[in-house]
């Protein structure tokens, strides 16, 4: 069993020119924690994720390497955060995507795919190494569903 046999071959994807607000809408609609981003030729460019969005909302001092580990002293300011979200909503996701995310190749074995999923905790893009094209997306749900069907068969 390989990544290609159990992946979702028709995943939701974003374009690099989409805005952050559009990306948030897509992620909320499909309840996705991360979405692959592609260019017009369906070449994989990276991932836009909820984690990345949280990073944009938090102060930079807290998301830096060796930054603040505790923000309990900062007063709660939902209005300030709402303004911040509106402010970044118009920005292009190309400026905020993770362009070196973990991904697997279509012929990756299931155990290797499982290890990546375990390490990264999010859906993985399945990318053809030669062409750079996005082949699909694989999530823990896909793996468990695939294994269950096998078991039943």
């Amino acid at each position, binding site marked *: 069993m390989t990544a290609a046999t159990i992946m979702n071959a028709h995943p939701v994807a974003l374009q690099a020119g989409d805005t952050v607000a559009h990306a948030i809408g897509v992620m909320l609609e499909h309840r996705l924690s991360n979405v692959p981003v592609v260019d017009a030729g369906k070449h994989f460019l990276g991932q836009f994720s909820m984690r990345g969005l949280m990073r944009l909302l938090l*102060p*930079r*001092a*807290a998301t*830096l*390497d*060796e*930054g*603040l580990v*505790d923000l*309990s*002293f*900062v*007063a709660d*300011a939902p209005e*300030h955060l709402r303004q911040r979200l509106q402010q970044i909503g118009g920005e292009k996701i190309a400026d905020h995507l993770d362009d070196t995310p973990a991904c697997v190749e279509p012929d990756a074995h299931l155990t290797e795919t499982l290890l990546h999923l375990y390490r990264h905790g999010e859906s993985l893009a399945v990318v053809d190494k030669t062409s750079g094209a996005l082949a699909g997306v694989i999530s823990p749900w896909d793996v468990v569903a695939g294994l269950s069907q096998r078991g039943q068969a």
Partner: protein
Amino acid sequence: MHGAQASAAIFGWDALWVATALFGATYAVIMSEKVNRAIAALLGAGLMILLGVLDQQAAVRGIDFNTLGLLIGMMVIVAITRKSGVFQYLAIWAAKKADARPWGILLMLSAVTAVLSALLDNVTTVLLIVPVTLLITEELEVKPYPYLFSIVFAANIGGTATLIGDPPNIMIGSAANLSFNDFVFNLAPIIPLIFAATMAPIYLIWRNEFTASDAARQRVLSFNEREAISDARLLRQSLAVLALVILGFVFARPLHLEPATIALFGAALLLLLENLPHHAEQQSGNVHGAFADVEWVTIFFFVGLFIVVYGIEQAGLIELMADQLVTATRGDLTLTAMAILWGSALLSGVVDNIPFVATMIPLIKSMAPAFGGPEQLTPLWWSLALGACLGGNGTLIGASANLVVAGYAERAGHPIRFVPFLLVAFPLMLVSIAISSVYVYWRYL
């Protein structure tokens, strides 16, 4: 064993030439930054032994364990203390004391940095202060550059004031048998003047940047510094041990104790207090974490350097260099002190001040006969300390703290560039050295 005795290395080569070549090659590799400095120093040290300049026993004698023990002890104490959140508390308290006004915040954060740098090492201080500074400037919606610039200066200026404030002082104190009190009485008095003389131009240069909206200031004023204290029990224990350690340094001489003993005992005591309530597994994790926070790269860098410098000392190079310097200054103490002060300051801007000071220490010691004994060398030690510590402010690569701040600034999207930094920092560094020159001349010469 001195130069004449260490005449031959392997294959009958002249030990002086072998040691000089190894010393030059080691320092060149360190300065090139192509190889990690600890690797370069340890390789140089290993070659000093393998090529017969030193044997292993002699190499071990060259290592100043007092310096290493003091550094390690203080690093462990700070690693545990920082977990209490006290440093964030101090930074937020300082910002609020300034009523969240930008210039006041800059001044207060710089003052807190200078005081902490005098009691801890500079790198640790900036690691603790810079993240809070970035948060405050982000909330104030002001450019962080002037604040980060001031913190660099404050860290290096504050660190000059005490024995434990900056690694060069630790090395000088240990080698010249100068106590914590000696540093406080001789260097600390000039520090407030240098600090003020640095802050005034900073205000003039960036005065137009020091504005913030009321809403932004309110966000900073709404910070609750008490919430920054994550472990009140650990805070009390840490401050108690830190106070005991400082007291130990103050009374080290009458107690016949070396600073390394005091710092390592303080570290062990704090580890005990922190871990007493925990079971064995948790204790193991805590102790492992505290030891992991020790900057082992720095420690092994020191080990290698001490051996390399001991190699050239034993081979006779240091004595030759000292003779040259005394000849160049015609045996005039004032001229020698000024040469060391200005030379150290200018060189510390471009080369790592730790290997420089490691070389200068035996060199100054070798001048004792020319100036009438070791007790006559006091002005030279203070010149070296002032020059090496303050000289680090001259360029972005002049001190480790500068590079740490630059790293944070880069990651936060506000890079500090070498030349713009140099254009402001170098003249300010020269001002601090000019003040130091007057001070050294007036007080000791």
